[in-house]
């Protein structure tokens, strides 16, 4: 492998990772508290989960395209890609947070309240720890799919491993396509295994 290719593979991999990390972090910051909120307000649940589901149905390239002309969120470059990736990551994280919290044994919740825990204590000491495996599963799903979807970011000038893939397709250069696809797949694999390991650590209950 030429040193230029190796250097560029490293650069693009870091760009790719960066896109994914930012998107997942922002999505989690919104989706986890959002999920907690939805368990407190069942009325909102249908509409907000519905909104996230609709986003999910929009084909990724289309969503990138929709965002392009918008004033702040749009334009060429990584921030548009991050916005799109963030929106996609919302649903799995929110849904799993809701499922995790509502899935807590009602007897446990009842006992916690009856023994005199305040709602904050119930949330932080009982509900969230017990919902953690489900939340982590949601994070894992979101991360793995985001790594894949982030390859599209190259189409709008956001960099990432998709650059190799698109350029490889244009020049029918299989080696180049693989130079983009393999690191992305490896990243997804590592994320999947790593997060699953963490999930298992917290699932002993």
């Amino acid at each position: 492998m030429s040193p230029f290719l190796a250097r560029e593979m490293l650069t693009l991999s870091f760009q790719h990772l960066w896109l994914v990390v930012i998107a997942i972090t922002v999505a989690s910051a919104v989706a986890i508290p959002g999920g907690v909120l939805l368990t407190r307000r069942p009325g909102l649940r249908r509409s907000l989960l519905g909104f996230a589901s609709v986003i999910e149905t929009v084909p990724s390239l289309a969503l990138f395209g929709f965002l392009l002309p918008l004033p702040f969120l749009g334009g060429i470059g990584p921030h548009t890609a991050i916005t799109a990736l963030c929106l996609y990551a919302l649903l799995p994280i929110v849904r799993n947070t809701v499922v995790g919290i509502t899935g807590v044994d009602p007897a446990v919740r009842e006992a916690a309240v009856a023994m005199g825990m305040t709602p904050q204590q119930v949330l932080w000491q009982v509900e969230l720890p017990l919902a953690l495996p489900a939340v982590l599963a949601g994070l894992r799903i979101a991360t793995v799919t985001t790594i894949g979807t982030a390859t599209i970011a190259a189409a709008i000038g956001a960099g990432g491993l998709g650059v190799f893939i698109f350029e490889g397709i244009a020049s029918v250069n299989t080696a180049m396509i693989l130079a983009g696809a393999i690191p992305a797949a490896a990243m997804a694999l590592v994320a999947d295994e790593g997060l699953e390991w963490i999930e298992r650590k917290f699932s002993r209950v």
Partner: protein
Amino acid sequence: MTPPPAVLDIRNLSCRIAEREVLHDIKLTIEAGETVVLLGRSGCGKTTLLKCVNGLIPASRGEIVFQGRPAAEWDPFRMRRAIGYVIQDFGLFPHWTVAANAGLVPKLDGWAADALEKRVNLVLDAVGLPPHEFGARYPRGLSGGQKQRVGIARALAADPPLLLFDEPFGALDPITRFELQRHFLELRAHFHKAALFVTHDVREALMLASRIVLIKDGTVDLVATPGEFLSGATEESRAFLASLDGGGRTNESISRA
């Protein structure tokens, strides 16, 4: 000197749930050391009454007076911490050890670490679960009977004046149930607490109660000691007695208590 106030005084309590009056004008007093059993058919309101005491269900009229102070004057979380609660499905925190579960309320109350540990060991011993053997285990490895023992230990840990029991032995097999009923009587002798105990099992009521309060359709049908209950003063109590096999064995179950 004025006598100490009753641990619990339920005054003219009514409770409305979804347009239906589930409890109507309940009056009841419980003193320290008493076990008052709320007996009744399914749906009669006995569990609702229990949950009104610790505020899990709001009452629509009347008041709960706990240790001489109306519930409205209590900080609701503090009041709950002063009332033990044992439920049929155990409700143990699966992610906490047995010792941590037992020590929940003292921890919430901010007890010092060594006082807390001593108390947890004490209550675990009292319910028949030696702490060195069971303290570090998790609820999922325990049998139903063991889980409920932890539930009782948890209820006793902060030394509350009042304990509430909601059909605590209903999910256990008959042998374990009998063991725990016997154990309950031992604990009562030792800890001298006021207890409000809900059941639909007349046998259990006769075995455990100092007084039986028979609830029918949201109102008090009869208040009697077990012995008085056997005479069947009301139609509902007679229906319960008839559900025992011929009523012949009841004297034996009382003498065993």
